[in-house]
Structure formats: C-alpha cells, structure tokens
C-alpha cells in the first residue's frame, strides 16, 4: 500500500465517521425533519469546492507570473476536484429543496452563482482537454480560472440585487444546538481532508501525464545539465 492508497483509505474512514455523526449523533431538526441532515455535507462540500477553486486561482496567478509547472498541475487538480464537489453540492441542494421548497430549482442568487461556478470550471476542464498541452493551454486556462473566480461573486451580487430566497448562513448561531454545530464542523474537517487527498492524488496523475507527454519545466531545459535528484 503506497502513501496515496493510505491517504485515500484514511479519508474514506473519516467520511464514514462523519456519516455516523450525521445520522446517529446529530439531533433531528424540529421543523425540517431528517431532510435537514443533508445540510452537513451540502455546506461542507460547497466550502471544499470554493477551496479547490481558490487553489485554481492561486495556481493560475503563480503560473502567469513565473511559468511554474507545479502551480499549473495544482490548478488542474483543483479544478477537477472542485467540479466534483460542486456537483455534489448542487445535487444535494436539489434533494433538500424538493421537500422544503417544493421545487428542485429556483433562480435564487446562491443557486444561480453555484451553477455558473460549475459551468465555468467545467469549461476550464474542456479547455484543458481541447487545447494542445503546453504553455499556451496553461496560460489560457489560468486566465479562465482567474476570471471564473472573480465572476462568481459578481454573479451572486447581481442576482441578490435582483431577487433571492436561499436561507442565509445560519451556521454560527446561538440557536443551533451544540451537537449540530459539532457534527457540522466534523463533517467540514473530514470533507476538507477528502478534498486535499483528491487533489494530491490528481496532482500525482497530472505529473505522470506530463511526464508521458514530455512536458518539462522550460527553465530546466535551457539551463543545461539537469540537477541530480537527491537520493
């Protein structure tokens, strides 16, 4: 078992612990009933997705500044994992909305901006797939990642100004029982670990893909002899 398999097993174990807390430790919501249990993973995966897209943003900025291949690989990994978590957020949100709002979808600010977020980063992944791998594709993708990150709050703001019905953030609130709060933070921590493990594994895959396609750091090619790898 290599270190990636160990990390993956640990992350799965943590998610099972979080699942146990969600179903057996957290009390049932008085108003919403068992449906409210969706909230723990829904909000956690939304936060994890934003974290992943922050990795894409920072990776993109670093890549544009100094052509760092490491930053670009992290950006690629972050985008893919972020799209997965955004999908989870959207699907769970819709499952929650059907019994509570009596509709799967409504054009509210948070729903619209999350959908736009998903579309933009799905587009980012398409760019990576359709553009010839190399410097141009990486720069192009970096710009898409940066614009996407900026666009989402702008979309959110414009729809809020227009109309909204999403429940406000009530995570840190005296009214929320301590057990619910503890379950939420446990789920959040486990989800973030899962996201980090995903990114690490995807980073490894991207490195191997780059090696197969002979994409190497441009600086090392012109710098003459390669530095010896430390044993």
């Amino acid at each position, binding site marked *: 078992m290599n270190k990636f398999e160990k990390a993956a097993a640990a992350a799965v174990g943590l998610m099972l612990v979080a699942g146990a807390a969600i179903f057996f430790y957290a009390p049932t919501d008085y108003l919403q009933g068992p449906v409210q249990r969706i909230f723990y993973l829904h909000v956690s995966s939304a936060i994890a997705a934003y974290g992943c897209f922050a990795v894409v943003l920072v990776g993109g900025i670093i890549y544009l500044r100094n052509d760092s291949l490491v930053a670009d690989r992290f950006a690629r990994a972050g985008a893919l994992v972020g799209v997965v978590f955004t999908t989870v957020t959207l699907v769970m949100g819709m499952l929650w909305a059907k019994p509570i709002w009596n509709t799967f979808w409504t054009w509210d600010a948070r729903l619209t901006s999350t959908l736009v977020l998903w579309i933009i980063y799905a587009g980012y992944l398409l760019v990576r797939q359709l553009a010839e791998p190399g410097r141009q594709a990486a720069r192009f993708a970096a710009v898409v990642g940066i614009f996407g990150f900026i666009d989402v709050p702008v979309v959110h703001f*414009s729809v809020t100004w227009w109309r909204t019905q999403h429940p406000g953030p009530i995570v840190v609130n005296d009214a929320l029982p301590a057990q619910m709060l503890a379950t939420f933070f446990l789920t959040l921590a486990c989800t973030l670990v899962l996201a980090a493990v995903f990114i690490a594994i995807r980073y490894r895959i991207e490195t191997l893909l780059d090696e197969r396609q002979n994409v190497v750091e441009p600086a090392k090619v012109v710098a003459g002899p390669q530095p010896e790898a430390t044993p």
Partner: protein
Amino acid sequence: MNSLRVAVAVARKDLVSEWRTRELVPALAQFIILALLIGNFAFQVDSRNATAIAPGVLWLALVFAGLVAFGRTFTAEREQASFEAMLMTPASPVAIFAGKALAAGAMLVLCEAALLPALSLFFGTPFSVDLVAAVLLATVGMAVLGVLFAAMVARVRARELLLPLLTLPLWIPIIIAGATAVQAAFGLPGSYQEAIGLLIDFDILFVVLTSLAARFVLDE
C-alpha cells in the same frame, strides 16, 4: 509608439476591411431579423404580451449575434497568419487588444442599429434613449470579454464550441443588469437608474480585468 494611436489604427484596419468585404455586419443583421421572426412564432406574440417578451428576444438575439461577431474577430489574422507579425511590432499587446475590441464592439453596435428599430417595429415596444443607452453600455462589457476569449480560443481546436461555453457565463452579470434596464425602459417593473449604475460598474470592472489579462493572452 502611442498606445491610443495603435488601438485606433488596429480598429480602423478591421473596420476598413469589414467595409470593403461587407461580410459580417449584413449577415449578422439578417441573423438578428431571423431571431426576431423565430421569437415571434415561438412565443405567440400579441399586443398584450409583446412588451413582456420583447426584452428576452432582444437579449437572446444580441447575445448570439455577439458570439458570432466576436468569434470572427481573429479569423482574418488566423487565415493570413498575420497575428504573430502584429505581435512582433513594438506595439503593446494591450493596445492591439483594445483596438480589436473597439472594432468588434463597433460592428455589434451596427447590428444593434438594425436590431432595436426592428424590435420596436415587430413588437411595438417603445424606442427610447434609455433603451439605446442600456444596450450600448452592455455592448462595452460584452465586447471586451468576448474579444479576450476569442483571442484565446483562436489557437485552440473546436474554437466555435469553446467560445460560447467560456464567454456566456462571464456575460451573465452584464445580461442581468442590461435586461433589467431594458425591462425598465419598456415600462416593466425595475429601477432603471440602479440597473444602469450596475452596468457601468461591470463595464469598468471588465475593462480593467481584460486589459490586465490581455498581456498574458496575446503575448506569445
């Protein structure tokens, strides 16, 4: 070299080339009329619902005409392989980008000169300065974003597929504010002042952002 002069020269070159060939603007104007025709049949327009439907038809026609117009911005350069030559000159890439966006925006404005009167004619909506101002302000933001992404996809496979996918989500804030402004100009509920203020904010934001990004996109 003065950046402003470069931008004007690039824009002039594109507009002169369009004037001589007359291929994009007439085709797009016809496309827009067709979009209005389809809107008319798809919605069963009559005198009572026309004002409610017209803004939607306007934005759909404008957005898709914009995608076609901006998608063709770099076609001539790609076909003649002249873009590298343009970038090799001492002119700054940002100035070249500004010129390209200026010309593409101007061509979309020409199409709007066909769209807005035709909309008033076919849908019986009021034709006002408010309407023109809202559409023109939206064109600024659409043009800078559209041309930036057109420059990027120009060198990618399946560029016709990628351009709408990347540009449309970024246009959404502009479309929301612009649509509200047009609805208000047609007498539907909504604050025209607020919508126009927001549109100006978005224009400033996107002009600044695209100018910053143009250096990385065009510099090869």
